[in-house]
């Protein structure tokens, strides 16, 4: 019931559930394993798996990637290119140093933070923080991704690019990611005393902080769900918190 994120009246359900625990971009789960050999038969050379359809991640190397590997070898996980867009995956430790390096290096000075956002992967209880960076002088756009567990804080980059100030506030507002060293980490789009983090996958789209509505607007909004618990719409009547 808590996983019922999709509306039950939806006409189209995906053919199979979304691939579990796959970081964004990994299409390798589509490759079937070769069938197990029947007992007693001699092991034949396994057939080569068929080429997976659709765009794949291509490995990407460049002088910038080499410089990062050299300086931050322990944090660097991989770099790849998907549909022509270059991405680097790093660990979240020392993210502020990595970002400072990316901004100040001479190879591709990424002086403009285009966007900072998060993606929730509930199966692994992780948030993937995505930074999209751009260099005006080299006209190059790079994406940097770092994964954190839901309860872990991450360093803020608002000291490096001031753009991150509000962008991180929004990530905090919508996902609940704690940023360390942020000058003003409070809710930006939702009211200050709202409870709940809407863009998480366990927050139903119809969910609403009914207590907030009751307190500030003085009405009973009639939403059947409330914070923390998603009840199925078909269940018996409206339940108030005092029940």
């Amino acid at each position, binding site marked *: 019931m808590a996983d019922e*994120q*999709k*509306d039950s009246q939806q006409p*189209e359900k*995906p053919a199979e559930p*979304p*691939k579990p625990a*796959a970081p*964004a*971009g*990994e*299409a390798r*789960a589509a490759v079937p394993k070769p069938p197990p050999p029947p007992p007693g038969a001699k092991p034949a050379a396994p057939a080569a798996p068929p080429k997976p*359809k*659709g*765009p794949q*991640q291509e490995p990407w190397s460049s002088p910038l990637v080499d410089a990062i590997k050299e300086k931050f070898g322990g944090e660097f996980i991989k770099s790849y290119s*998907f*549909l022509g*867009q270059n991405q680097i995956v790093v660990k979240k430790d020392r993210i502020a140093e990595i970002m400072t390096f990316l901004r100040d290096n001479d190879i591709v000075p990424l*002086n*403009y*933070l*285009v*966007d900072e*956002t998060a*993606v*929730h992967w509930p199966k692994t209880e992780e948030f993937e923080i*995505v930074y*999209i960076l751009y260099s*005006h002088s080299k*006209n190059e*756009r790079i*994406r940097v991704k770092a994964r954190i567990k839901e309860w872990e804080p991450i360093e803020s980059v608002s000291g490096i*690019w*001031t*753009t991150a*100030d*509000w*962008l991180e506030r*929004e990530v905090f507002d*919508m996902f609940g990611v704690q940023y360390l060293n942020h000058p003003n980490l409070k*809710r*930006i*789009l*939702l*009211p200050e005393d709202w409870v709940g983090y*809407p*863009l998480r996958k366990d927050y139903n*789209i119809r969910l609403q902080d009914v207590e907030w509505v009751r307190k500030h607007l003085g009405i009973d909004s009639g939403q059947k769900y409330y914070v923390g618990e998603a009840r199925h719409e078909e269940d018996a009547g409206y339940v108030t918190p005092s029940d």
Partner: protein
Amino acid sequence: MGPQHPSTHGVLQVKLKLDGERVIDAECVIGYLHRGVEKLGEAQTYGQFVPTLDRMDYIAAVSNCLGYCEAIEKLLSVTAPPRAQCIRVIMTELNRITSHLLWLGTHAIDLGAVTVFLYCFREREEILKIFENYCGARLTTHMFRIGGTQYEIYDGFQDQVRVFVKDFPKKVDEYETLLTENRIWIGRTRGVGVISAKDAIDMGLTGPSLRGSGVEWDIRKAKPYAVYSDFEFDIPVGEQGDTYDRYMVRLEEMRQSARIISQAVEKIPDGPLMAKMSKIIKPPIGDIYHSIESPKGELGYYIVSDGSTQAYRARVRPPSFVNLQSLKRMVAGHMVADVVAIIGTLDIVLGEIDR
């Protein structure tokens, strides 16, 4: 400066710390128009999400549509046919003129020049008539589809656009005679809201506000999309980064948009309007970022797909949200009346900021 204010261009609250009439600090409180568009992006299918996006930047709805459709087309590795792309360019540039006209009208009326407002809306009416003839809606148009455009251009479209584009530069000159050399206008906008190029890039400012500070950067030239690389146009750049420069940049951008349209309307190629693709849109697993130059700045879409018919994460990078951060830096030291000018010059639309 509360959410209900005639000059805050929507429901924006600015908390000002004042010393007499001078502003020491400003803090923006936003979120009054938050509708959860990104959450809807995860619940609706890709095709269903497109009209929802129109409501974001409701002044220039065509750009939102274009950005998203192009992002999904990139993810699907599909290109819209040339005819559709040409129509898209024409509509997007008309949309840019619309947005800048509204900006000029409201900016001028905030500072007291009432006539400009009426003149701008007269021109805007012409464009909205074209939009209405094309797709049936004036404001929240749902013009493009993933893979191309839905509607064929109507008979008389090219003539109507040609007539508009022929007259338009003269109209822009008319606005210039009202404002550019006007002592009051110069007095109220020169030196107000200055931001240096370095600060602007650091704060993520994009669009005409960035070009007013001297940075010559336009996504239509840097990372061309649709068929912009086929047309000749210039990018106007300011020098000092104050309100007056941003005004001149936007005025010139309107002329350049008219130039693009006049080139595009002559060479609309023949062909189909939609690319060949399946009706049910199921992009491959992966993520994509695509941005376009909307009239307000860099409008970006970061879409994460998990292979199903709904997006896993549909993130919109709204230009006005990031631009509004610069308000704090621009406003320090000015007077309360200048705050109105600065909010106007940033060209924000709250629908986009709050989503």
